[in-house]
């Protein structure tokens, strides 16, 4: 199936989405957070059945988190196997909440756990949002842009300054 046909079908089913195809067949879809589950299952039925990654980007200046789903295909057809679908949605930074992708993709659980721990995003429907990597509690989730690693180390381990600061 070509990217044009997918664009037509998605455009007729879902409103308020942006659809962009880059020149090497990478599809970018920007959608509202309420539509995400429907679009994910729609794209899965179209053959993009491999959830490669769920990622999160902190756009602090716009006060938003961007949740990114990257889907590829397990089909070995020549054309389709090279298409990546990159589905993005923005959620508010103050109250970061989104539906879990677990009903559609079983392997979403750990990606969501990681994003919950490192960015503080809540996933509705994922019952196992327990710590994954970290052992301490943090006031600000550590992968957010306003978490300063150098400041944190200074406060935690005392004032052993880095070499460049000593010379001042």
């Amino acid at each position, binding site marked *: 199936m070509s990217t044009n046909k997918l664009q037509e079908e998605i455009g007729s089913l879902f409103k308020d989405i942006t659809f962009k195809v880059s020149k090497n067949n*990478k599809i970018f879809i920007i959608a509202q957070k309420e539509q995400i589950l429907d679009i994910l299952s729609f794209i899965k039925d179209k053959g993009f*059945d*491999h*959830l*490669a*990654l769920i*990622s999160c*980007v*902190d756009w602090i200046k716009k006060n938003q988190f961007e949740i*990114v789903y*990257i889907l*590829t295909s*397990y089909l*070995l057809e020549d054309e389709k*196997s*090279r298409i*990546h679908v*990159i589905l993005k949605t923005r959620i508010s930074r103050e109250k970061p909440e989104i539906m879990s992708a677990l009903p559609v*993709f*079983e*392997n979403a*659980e*750990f990606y969501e756990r990681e994003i919950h721990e490192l960015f503080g995003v809540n996933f509705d429907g994922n019952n196992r949002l327990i*710590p*994954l*990597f*970290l*052992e301490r509690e943090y006031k600000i989730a*550590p*992968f957010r842009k306003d*978490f300063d*690693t150098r400041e944190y180390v200074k406060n935690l381990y005392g004032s052993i300054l880095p070499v460049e600061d000593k010379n001042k």
Partner: protein
Amino acid sequence: MIEERELELFYGPQHLGMVGNFSITLKVEGDTIVEAIANPGYLHRGFEKLMEYRNWIQNFPLVCRINVIEPDSMEMVYAMAVEKLAGIEVPERGNYIRTIFLELSRIASHLFGAWAYVNMLGFDTAAQWAMYHRDLILDLFEELTGGRVYHIYIQPGGVRRDFPKGFKDKIVKTLHSIGGCIPDYDATFFNNSLFYKRANGIGKINLETAKKLGAVGQVLRATGMEYDIRKIEPYAAYDKVDFNVPTRKKGDAYSRIWIVRDEMIESVHMIFKLLEQMPKGDVWNRTPNPFKWQIPERDVYVRVESSRGELGVYLVSNGENKPYRVHFRTPSYTHGLVILEKLLKGANISDVGNIMISLYVIAPEIDR
């Protein structure tokens, strides 16, 4: 009648059957595992966050440390992502050298993985051979790059330097001496009935479940699917060389380890072909001054086939001289967390190490 009761058992990180900094909490009833909980995080260094503070070139020493056993595919995927973002081309010879280098590192990584598995089953002799043969490849790396484990050899625009004089012959000689020992490996390990009895039917997974759980690499290929990024979405010089993707049908530990063996042989053949076809020319296209190098606002997902499966990176630039967000999709992440927990349910305690190492999990790649 004695009441059956559940017992909680901590498996790792200090355990003989465990390779790497990783632990599993098991709930057992008798000898059977009722529930397994994977606990990563012993090696979480926060590299993805640290990379946001450093410029595009400075990140290479961090990137290679994410996967200790096979650092080169990490460098490759990051370099490819930067090239895609900035629109840099790689010269023909650079691509060939990258491919040869990646295949050498795949063999080294597989030998290390074979060591872990063979050693776990108690075949010490074959395990020591594998470690020795890996060392021969590390000698090649040392001559080419100056480093044995971490090479920082691949960079945006190509590779750091051309092959030194007489290096081709050295590669051929080393690979011949390793290849000459394959009959010995087969006799002592792969055709050994003890290996068959110990691994046959262990950690079995079928194609449907594997796909549903996001399996890649050997785990998926052992269920009969020819899924290899080198074939599907060729990068470097993989589209210019002919090679087979070894598969098996049964999806158990036995098939997975056989695929590792077959892939090593396939890589050796591929390197010989590539060395013959190698063109002349430059190995590196100049990139801008690293301190002033700003990449326009864009994001990209790039993937390669590492020795363990699909390795990808999601890289975001916001127009500055450093990345805005880096996120690695590593093959061990799904294998070591999702699939491991699933496969351990209902398994026997004595098979935990067998299942985990045959899934080819490597802990630093999960934690990052």
